[in-house]
């Protein structure tokens, strides 16, 4: 399921998407994530999809509670975004691609 881009440079964004089976939300989340990464991080990202129905023991390590959860491990700090990632703005802010708007 890994999709490593060819030139994984220092600033490569390592993303891990936790899902539980092929639910509507998990399919949507992966599709939204791919679209968004291609648009904003082309060539500078990896996506690892972890299906917790196959590997339930992996849920504890990243403190997964809600699903789907997108975890950005690198670059630090650790970021978590939950949901089907349909709200592109929030995802971009969450991944520090777009600055947080001052309220």
């Amino acid at each position, binding site marked *: 399921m890994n999709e490593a881009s060819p030139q994984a440079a220092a600033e490569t964004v390592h993303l891990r998407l936790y899902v539980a089976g092929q639910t509507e939300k998990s399919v949507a989340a992966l599709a939204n994530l791919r679209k968004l990464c291609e648009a904003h991080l082309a060539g500078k990202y990896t996506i690892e999809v972890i299906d917790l129905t196959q590997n339930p023991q992996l849920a504890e390590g990243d403190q997964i509670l*809600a699903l789907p959860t997108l975890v950005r491990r690198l670059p630090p700090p650790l970021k978590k975004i*939950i949901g089907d990632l349909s709200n592109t703005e929030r995802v971009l802010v969450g991944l520090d691609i777009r600055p947080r708007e001052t309220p």
Partner: protein
Amino acid sequence: MDQRSSPVTKPPSPQLQKVPTGIDGFDEITLGGLPQGRSALLCGAAGCGKTVFGVTFLVEGATRFDDPGVFVSFEETAPDLTTNVASLGYDLQDLIDRHKLIIDHVQVERSEIEEAGEYDLEGLFVRLGYAIDRIGAKRVVLDTLESLFAGLSDAAILRAELRRLFAWLKSKGVTAIITAERGEGQLTRHGLEEYVSDCVILLDNQVYDQIVTRRLRVVKYRGSSHGTNEYPFLIDAGGITVLPITSVGLAHEVLDELVPTGIAGIDGMLSAGGYYRGSSILVSGAAGTGKTIFGAQFANSVCARGERCLYFAFEESPHQIVRNMRSVSLDLRKHVDAGLLAFKAARPSLHGFEMHLAGMYRDVEQFKPAAVVVDPISAFRGPAGEIHAALLRIVDMLKARCITAVFTSLSPAIQHQMTDADRSVSSLMDVWISLFDVEANGERHRGLHVIKSRGMSNSNQSREYLLTDEGMHLRDPQFKLPVSSRSEV
């Protein structure tokens, strides 16, 4: 391991099956414990003992009933939790190593989490399901589930997911405790009682006179009768003890067997020749009238017959009592060494009266004495009504076990004046012996009389007694007490 395959939601008999918590007193109140295969809601403010209750449920389950358990902690990490309950004598690490317990710390940090679209709590289900299946857990504690409301902002999703969680727990056949914070005007802050309503337990801390009493109440128990009162409970080195208000009531067994008073002359003042076994005796008197000697002589006579006696000391340390009683030729040490006599000493102000009684209840359960001395009950402070209610419990508890009990009580120096404590407890007592002083001709005389003795006639005489190197003994009846030179009130 495969509780998934058994249709646990349908018990074999129509009667609700129960799972014992192993908490002293609680299983008695609920007539067996928590409802099997269902979730119980445990609510209370911070510091009420919710976590300890949950941990005890799992530890007792694992050690006494061979039920493995899963503790999902939303607040404390596994090492913190292990350290915190070590003071209660629980070795969680050992249970974890033996695959009897899993602690899963679920961390919800709002600042770390961005919400972008639809989500559910399947991750929690996966983790919990994985933990349950790994050790074949029968018991689950979720402490405190409401932390989710602080960590995630979409309350609508949370509510739908919690509803799903409770249904899922039921389908897994586990008996669960869900803890929740007490809310304003409702049982829990986020209204969890709407979802978990088979069994609701409320914990409470009440402060009176700077002394805290923990209380427990079963608010609701579907499909079962239960005690409806507020019960004081205690958390200490022995875990949790709930003091039930006498499920036995006045239906206790009555014995005709006699127990000597330990003071020869007093046996003779009671027509039966002693106390009935299982009766409660009040010994009241002013300072220096020898109440403790009275109690110690009784304890000595019990032990001399080879029976066990438990001595609750609220004013003196056990060593001090043993030393002081040597001066009246009472060797209590040998009874202690023989395991027949045990002292439990505590300052009355250590905790509320009811908490002491909860502790006494547990001590009695453990030591299984034939007789008990409580020295003195007047050391306790509190409204007379509360002392009365609490004493009623201990008296009934002792009576139900056919334990003979001597209670001493300090009364004011003025003869025949009752303290609130005396007045409130005297109606509970089967025998009341009053010790008093008479001052005449520049001398102090000690006298006693039997105010009442249920089920037997008693001497009407006021008898003079002496405290000598040989202990307390009555003078012959021909020695009449002198008439006091003081003007009595």
